[in-house]
């Protein structure tokens, strides 16, 4: 018997056709992947499967129950983990778990066996507020809450977006464990290594299913989207840099940021040369964002010294701000302004005049092939475009260095590749790029990388050097090796 049967489902919101003629079935105990770009209709599909949303057409049966007529039966049997963190941030880990258990009329004690494997990992922090957990821990807690009533079907909507590689692996190990218990799992993910761990995947794009099959088959069939050719590490670009290697854009010595007794950043020292692409890696909560905030003049260091584009980060932070670009982790353009208005605002803040702004805006939009969206509200753009735009705005005033904090979170591989083309383009023009990322394939694109663990830099060098030093085939494994040594597991 199939655990899930979806038959010609369609859903539209006003003019937007979110889902169209979607049909597939999932066997009992199968690990089924739903993949596709942002805005493909994945979340709508999940909501229909969980009986949260009514389909316009078609029928859906979960565990043999119709999601429209037998909603109650369906809800007893499914666990849903939405894309956004959906727990109560002000309740502790334990309180959250008990609350969700009570909702389903059961207790944590009754079902402790069902969640033991996962919960034992976060149990040491059971008195901590959920909002204070790191990304990976939050997801584990959310998974516990979704499992506490022993569902037979589990829906996971991008459970690993914004989670570091080590935590991601742990989460998927847990999913394999659940599979052994005959739990049917439907999960979506932008990560290719996770796609490969599914038994079958469905590729959803623009509301339609383009293909269903084994991961290898789908990834091969749609290779233009999933495995775009690797970026060439441009020789010319490397050569350019050689001439200017002596000049440092960032010089940091013994930098510390302490919050009370907790050292978020614990004595780090490094330099970034002009024109290079510097990858700043680390697990969730390792102190990357805090370090970046100090370099961009958002935070004061507790001790240590640092110079960015020649200015002291303790005293001349307002000067630094004139010469850097920044793209924050949270998407940070104004959603209620149009593309052109956003560009004009930030350009104006950096002191450009109307004529120059107009000229450069036209040039930029043409280069991005985006002129027809000049007057569209930013909120109406797809995520990938927003991020490309945010990056372009952050380097619009030709800064000496640009800081990018997880710029490609939650974006499909093809868009990520396009994004990196923009980064290479900027580097060509002599802009130093300082970037954090959770995608290890992106780390390979960098000229040099550093890996932060527990507030300290544990490794620093070119990707090739690091692979040799730790004797691992790729950066992913180097990272995993180092991050597993972490003592503190949460920020």
């Amino acid at each position: 018997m199939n655990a899930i049967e979806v038959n010609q489902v369609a859903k539209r919101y006003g003019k937007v056709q979110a889902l169209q003629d979607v049909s597939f079935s999932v066997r009992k105990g199968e690990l089924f992947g739903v993949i596709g770009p942002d805005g493909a209709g994945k979340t709508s599909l999940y909501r229909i499967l969980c009986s949260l949303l009514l389909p316009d057409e078609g029928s859906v049966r979960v565990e043999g129950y119709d999601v429209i007529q037998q909603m109650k039966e369906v809800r007893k049997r499914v666990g849903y983990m939405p894309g956004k963190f959906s727990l109560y941030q002000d309740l502790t880990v334990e309180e959250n778990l008990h609350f969700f258990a009570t909702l389903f009329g059961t207790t944590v004690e009754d079902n402790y066996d069902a969640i033991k494997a996962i919960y034992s990992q976060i149990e040491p922090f059971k008195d901590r507020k959920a909002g204070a957990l790191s990304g990976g821990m939050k997801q584990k807690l959310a998974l516990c809450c979704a499992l506490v009533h022993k569902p037979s079907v589990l829906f996971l909507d991008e459970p690993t977006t914004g989670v570091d590689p080590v935590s991601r692996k742990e989460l998927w190990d847990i999913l394999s464990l659940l599979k052994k218990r005959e739990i049917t799992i439907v999960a979506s993910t932008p990560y290719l290594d996770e796609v490969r761990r599914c038994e079958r995947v469905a590729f959803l794009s623009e509301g339609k299913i383009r293909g269903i099959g084994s991961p290898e088959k789908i990834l091969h069939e749609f290779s233009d989207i999933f495995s775009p050719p690797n970026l060439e590490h441009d020789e010319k670009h490397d050569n350019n840099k050689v001439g200017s290697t002596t000049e440092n854009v960032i010089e940091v010595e013994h930098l510390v940021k302490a919050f009370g007794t907790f050292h978020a950043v614990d004595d780090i020292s490094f330099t970034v040369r002009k024109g290079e692409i510097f990858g700043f890696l680390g697990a969730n909560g390792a102190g990357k964002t805090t370090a970046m905030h100090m370099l961009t003049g958002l935070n004061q260091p507790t001790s240590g010294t640092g110079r960015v584009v020649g200015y002291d980060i303790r005293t001349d932070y307002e000067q630094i701000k004139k010469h850097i670009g920044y793209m924050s982790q949270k998407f940070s353009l104004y959603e209620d302004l149009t593309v052109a208005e956003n560009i004009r605002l930030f350009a104006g803040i950096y002191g450009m005049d109307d004529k120059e702004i107009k000229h450069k805006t036209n040039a930029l939009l043409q280069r991005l092939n985006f002129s027809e969206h000049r007057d569209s509200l930013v909120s109406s753009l797809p995520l990938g475009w927003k991020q490309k735009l945010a990056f372009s705005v952050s380097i619009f005033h030709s800064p000496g260095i640009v800081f990018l904090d997880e710029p490609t979170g939650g974006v499909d591989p093809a868009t990520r590749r396009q994004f990196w083309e923009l980064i290479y383009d900027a580097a060509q023009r002599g802009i130093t790029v300082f970037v954090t990322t959770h995608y290890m394939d992106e780390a390979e694109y960098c000229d040099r990388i550093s890996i932060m663990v527990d507030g300290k830099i544990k490794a620093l060098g070119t990707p090739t050097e690091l692979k040799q030093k730790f004797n691992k085939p790729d950066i992913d494994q180097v990272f995993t090796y180092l991050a597993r040594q972490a003592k503190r597991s949460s920020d």
Partner: protein
Amino acid sequence: MTLKYLLRKEFTQIRRNPFLPRLIVMFPIMIMCIMPWVMNMEVKNVVVDVVDNDRSTLSQQLVHEIAANNYFSFHGQQPSYTAALNDIEHSEADIVVVIPQHYSRDLTLGNKPQVLIAANAVNGTKGSIGSVYLSQMVTTNAVPTLQALQTNVSTFYLFNRQLNYKRYMIPALFAIIMMMITGFLPTLNIVGEKEAGTIEQINVTPVNKWTFILAKLIPYWLIAFFVITVCLLLSWALYDITPVGNVALIYLLAMLLALFFSSFGLIISNYSDTMQQAILVMWFFVVILLLLSGLFTPTRSMPAAAYLTTYANPVSYFIDAIRTVFIRGGNLKSILHQVLALLGIGLVMGCWAVQSYKKNH
């Protein structure tokens, strides 16, 4: 220079907001159309029960007079005081008038009959004013000549001849409207950017703190200017009430109050992490400022400690000054004290708003 771009952004955002433009237009209209009728402290429609133990022509005359009076709503005659009291207990009547037996006879004989007026004083104002009205009526009914006597005492009401309550309340309503529009909207502004994450992007730019805060404040001052104009026009069109004093002074006062409230809103916004927190804190202060301002109750009759707080309460200065200008026609000299106080408080708040906005922690 940067200011131009920031201002353009703020105005575009306000205009694009699906809710704000409507609020800015509708709120003053609603308040001005409804509140002058509602915020009225005249006592009307006091429900009266009469127990007439005399049943004479004279006593019936008194009953008819009560029944015909606008201020009273005649609930009916009751057989006994106990029955009437029962009505009060069920909140069906506010006042009971008991006319004694032999009322008519005693009056004619020149004895002094005792009419009992029992008022429900849960609402003190209603009880006391109602019973004063009633005793006046009873007295004139008993001794008609007294009415003639009263005309020798002449009362002369200055500035508000008709004792029109609306004339008194409308300037105070301006304070409430300013408080809502220029207090709450800026409060939501910066904290909204915090929640959206855009503030971080602004903080890494070289934008000057003063410029940024000024760009946040100016739109609300212009909105305040617009709102006050709407209020003045409505007050003239709906109630035929126009300020006696110089209109420019009214604008001056309104702008000073806007300076205070917009700065105050931004301060709260700067210290808050979420909209919910900001709104609750703002609400807390607004209620206190309003109750201690003398808008509803005269400040002089407050306890000494509470009265002292009015020295630091800009709303109190505003209401005092605007009533002076609006009703009495006072000039700048007569409100100079309040203007300086408002300016002082406003400037301090403005500096605090800039100071509390931190681009670097």
